[in-house]
């Protein structure tokens, strides 16, 4: 499905990273593989460091911390927020929505909308689409989008397929109407028939958590995990990304009558370095135009990785001038989306550490 917006603009991005850092070299001792093989994987995938929350820390904690920083710095006023959207697959609770918890803790006005969206690695593109649609309403002038995950709490330390790549983070993006309209094009695709490729089997109503679902099991590939843990069919996801994402971006460029060369940077979701290098090679995009350094520095924080990549790699440029970006998110669902997003002199583009 294709989308087009004209008078919307991202005006600032703040990322919140847990201060707690883990090192692959220390964690690989938990894996049921010879160290030499894990080291080869580290080199190819780009695994190194990752940021994860300490026990009990939730998405709302990181989000409230970050939004309060914006209030303190005068970069955002509480009364300006007309809509607060949260995109996460690790909510504080089933009920109520995490957006309501954040609104309450920040003492925001009652005359506003809060909404949660359950979406993972494609969540930044989906969140921006939602924000733009909310801004179609006259009464909504400023939207705060929170993309956040604390999925490290749902990973098995003995599962080398997923444990070394997952990181936690929250990204706070402010979106407003733009007095200088520029075209924003986007495209989104879904294939729920492949939903089992990336899943936490237990914990929902289909299979509630129990002593049985918490039992670690031999997955048959030298990894051990419980049904309470996040599972990823790495080969299926890799193939999905390599097959589906290039035509998505190419069709989007064609729809917008744009060329690859007109894009300054391709900011993709950050699963691992190898996957992004292969994606860039397939699309004949120079590696330096598609950053791939987030997983090795902070870990893969699902829907937050695109703004984390923006802040890590392009903060100065994003605040100083205009950048033509192509965003691409892809993952659980399966869902994949891309957006041609011009950004112009962001009011803020920075990272803070929690706590």
């Amino acid at each position, binding site marked *: 499905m294709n989308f087009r917006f004209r008078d919307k603009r991202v005006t600032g991005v703040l990322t919140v990273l847990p201060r707690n850092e883990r090192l692959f070299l220390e964690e690989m001792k938990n894996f049921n593989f010879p160290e030499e093989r894990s080291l080869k994987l580290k080199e*190819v995938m780009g695994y190194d460091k990752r940021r994860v929350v300490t026990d009990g820390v939730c998405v709302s904690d990181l989000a409230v911390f970050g939004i309060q920083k914006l209030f303190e710095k005068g970069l955002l006023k509480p009364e300006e927020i007309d809509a607060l959207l949260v995109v996460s697959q690790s909510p504080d609770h089933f009920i109520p929505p995490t957006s309501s918890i954040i609104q309450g803790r920040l003492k925001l006005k009652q005359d506003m909308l809060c909404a949660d969206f359950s979406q993972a690695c494609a969540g930044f593109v989906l969140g921006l689409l939602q924000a733009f649609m909310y801004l179609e309403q006259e009464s909504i002038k400023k939207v705060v989008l929170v993309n956040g995950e604390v999925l490290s709490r749902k990973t098995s330390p003995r599962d080398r397929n997923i444990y070394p790549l997952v990181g936690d983070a929250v990204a706070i993006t402010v979106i407003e109407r733009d007095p200088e309209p520029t075209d924003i094009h986007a495209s989104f695709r879904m294939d729920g028939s492949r939903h089992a490729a990336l899943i936490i089997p237990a914990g929902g109503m289909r299979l509630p958590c129990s002593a049985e679902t918490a039992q670690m099991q031999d997955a048959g590939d030298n990894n051990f995990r419980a049904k309470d843990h996040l599972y990823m069919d*790495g080969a299926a996801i890799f193939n999905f990304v390599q097959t589906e994402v290039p035509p998505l971006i190419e069709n989007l460029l064609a729809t917008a009558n744009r060329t690859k060369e007109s894009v300054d940077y391709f900011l993709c979701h950050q699963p691992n370095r190898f*996957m992004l290098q*292969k994606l860039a*090679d*397939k699309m004949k995009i120079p590696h330096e135009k598609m950053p791939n350094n987030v997983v090795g520095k902070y870990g893969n924080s699902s829907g937050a990785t695109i703004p984390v990549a923006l802040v890590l790699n392009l903060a100065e440029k994003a605040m100083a001038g205009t950048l033509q970006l192509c965003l691409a998110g892809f993952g659980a669902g399966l869902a994949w989306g891309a957006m041609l997003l011009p950004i112009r002199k962001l009011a803020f583009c920075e990272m803070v550490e929690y706590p």
Partner: protein
Amino acid sequence: MKSVLEILKEIRPEFDFSASNDFMADGMLDSFDMVTLVAALDKNYGISIPGTEIVPENFQNVASIEALLRKSGVAA
């Protein structure tokens, strides 16, 4: 330049790859080894094997890996 067998030996030195016709079925390579192997082949031959070609069928044995290399631009 190293041969395919030499590269395989570097990745899983405990196996004799010349004695197998199906590395996956014989438990000599898993999906992560496949990724490590692709990175090593890319570097050794100065190519980039397309991501869509990283499927078990292309890494079944030495002949299938050599066929993949030819497909990826390595001269026979």
